[in-house]
């Protein structure tokens, strides 16, 4: 197996045993990038020079015996986290030339853990989308079928891992943007509890929903990444001072006697037959592993869409007000007075999807409508959170499909409104309630497209997610395939 095809824990073993070096790993990854990147387009910007310089320094540290959790490991960063001195665009024209003077907290944590940064991964503009088709820098393609979407908004972070263009990556999840691309690309993706991972330096979309999380090739790697990413940050006012366990201790544990909640509102008509079949097989594996499935109800599921599509755009309209051409980013060259400059800059700088959400959000927050719209949605949001709190009294984790269908073709949004509804419902409730969720591969369609299954747990119970995902991974023995690129 090539170095770029291996996992963090496999490479760390080899590094410790002196069987490989950080430089060899980095070079292997960049050779892979040379071979496939033009077809996949995972990256907006590659950082080859910086990566090789970092790998060289890492090898000196390795010789000294100073090996940290990610020393020498090539990691991709969704272009939504600020990297000091490296352009950070958020997939948008309005930030096409923005060079942050500071690092996001997660970037600093990864760097301190020894990570080698490969590049800034492609994404839907301002994280608004679920297909990575709205990026100003062009779409990313699914390595399993280049005519299909990889999912979004963290599409590039997912494809970089799936195509072995990095060993692991980070993305962000506001309504499913880690879990959905993980499922469509056949890898592991985790959205932590709200407040678990610092948002300082994460370009904000919806501040009460956003979270940063890892994409990895297997569950053990996910635990390794979470150990680095999680933790209280005094620079973020919503960061929680909850104890951070060693997530690796949950890997390899069994799930005998665990109750697995099956929400009846999620298992309805509209799920693709092969996806449903793969999820049913997953349930069978879990029951064989000692788990017991129990039916639960999340009665406010049908209101999630309405709540999300008021709250997320409202918060986005506020967060994106700063993009005005005054202090950084794109400023329209053909504008007159200040008001004209604002309007033309934002019209020319933002893409259609972003403008749509800003309009919806501005309307929902405007005078006279705030109470009826945003406030009402916030009240229903509490009811949604309470649904999960009640459910977790009856089960240890909840299981759902991650997406109702496998990846669809680029440019072809599904015509089926029920499928569109389900594709949102499976993931957005998690962000509304602030609970953690993980997507793990659970099989392939007859056409060779990956399918993912999702586990949800209570607040700060990422350990349970690692445990059940790891037990499932071990006992399901899903065939290890690679995309034919």
């Amino acid at each position: 197996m090539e170095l770029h095809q291996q996992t963090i824990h496999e490479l760390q073993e080899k590094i410790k045993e002196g069987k490989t070096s950080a430089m060899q790993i980095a070079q292997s990854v960049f050779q892979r990038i040379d071979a496939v990147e033009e077809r996949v387009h995972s990256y907006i910007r590659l950082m080859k020079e910086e990566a090789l310089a970092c790998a060289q320094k890492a090898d000196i540290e390795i010789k000294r015996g100073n090996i940290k959790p990610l020393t020498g490991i090539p990691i991709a960063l969704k272009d939504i986290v600020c990297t000091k001195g490296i352009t950070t665009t958020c997939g948008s024209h309005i930030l096409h030339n923005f060079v942050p003077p500071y690092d996001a907290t997660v970037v600093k944590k990864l760097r301190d853990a020894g990570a080698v940064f490969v590049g800034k991964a492609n994404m839907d503009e301002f994280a608004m989308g679920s297909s990575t088709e709205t990026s100003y820098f062009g779409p990313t393609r699914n390595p399993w079928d280049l005519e299909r979407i990889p999912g979004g908004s963290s599409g590039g972070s997912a494809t970089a891992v799936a195509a072995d263009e990095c060993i692991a990556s980070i993305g962000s999840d506001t309504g499913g943007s880690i879990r959905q691309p993980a499922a469509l690309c056949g890898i592991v993706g985790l959205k932590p509890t709200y407040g678990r991972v610092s948002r300082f330096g994460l370009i904000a979309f919806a501040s009460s929903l956003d979270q940063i999380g890892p994409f990895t090739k297997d569950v053990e790697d996910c635990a390794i990444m979470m150990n680095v990413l999680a933790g209280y940050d005094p620079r973020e006012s919503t960061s929680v001072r909850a104890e951070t366990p060693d997530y690796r201790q949950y890997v390899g544990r069994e799930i005998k006697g665990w109750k697995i909640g099956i929400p009846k509102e999620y298992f309805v008509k509209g799920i693709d037959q092969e996806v449903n079949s793969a999820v049913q097989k997953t349930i069978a594996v879990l029951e064989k592993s000692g788990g017991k499935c129990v039916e639960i109800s999340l009665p406010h599921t049908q209101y999630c869409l309405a709540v999300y599509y008021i709250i997320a755009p409202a918060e986005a309209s506020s967060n994106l007000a700063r993009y005005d051409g005054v202090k950084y980013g794109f400023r329209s060259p053909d504008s007159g007075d200040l008001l004209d400059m604002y309007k033309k800059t934002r019209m020319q700088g933002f893409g259609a999807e972003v403008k749509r959400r800003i309009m919806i959000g501005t309307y929902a927050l405007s005078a006279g409508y705030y109470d009826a719209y945003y406030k009402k949605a916030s009240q229903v949001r509490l009811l949604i959170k309470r649904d999960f709190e009640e459910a977790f009294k009856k089960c240890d984790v909840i299981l759902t499909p991650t997406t109702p269908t496998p990846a669809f073709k680029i440019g072809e949004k599904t015509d089926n409104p029920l499928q569109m509804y389900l594709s949102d419902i499976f993931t957005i409730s998690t962000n509304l309630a602030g609970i953690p969720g993980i997507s793990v591969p659970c099989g392939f369609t007859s056409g060779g497209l990956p399918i993912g299954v999702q586990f949800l747990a209570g607040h700060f119970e990422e350990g349970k997610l690692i445990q059940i995902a790891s037990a499932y991974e071990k006992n399901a023995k899903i065939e290890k395939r690679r995309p034919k690129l």
Partner: protein
Amino acid sequence: MEFEAVIGLEVHAQLLTDTKIFCGCSTKFGATPNSHTCQICLGMPGVLPVLNKKVVEFAMKMALATNCEINKSCSFARKIIFIPIFPRAIKYRNMHIPWRNMVT
């Protein structure tokens, strides 16, 4: 017709803290323009504010000195105003539950 004059006064008082309300930049006067600035007070993408404890302490002292009732819970809300001096186009207001007779 008789008219009664009703005059309201909106009084702004700068709190004498060493640093700004949401970041650790110095509030000292006399430095060159845009030198006591950082990514937070410039409203760059990705930044987050953290409230200066001294601001809260001074505001509470003022509230006590002027016989105000201090509410147990206080929250900030954003008001979007597009003016170049507001880097994030945001003005923070105490909404819903302000200190009685006090606006911070």
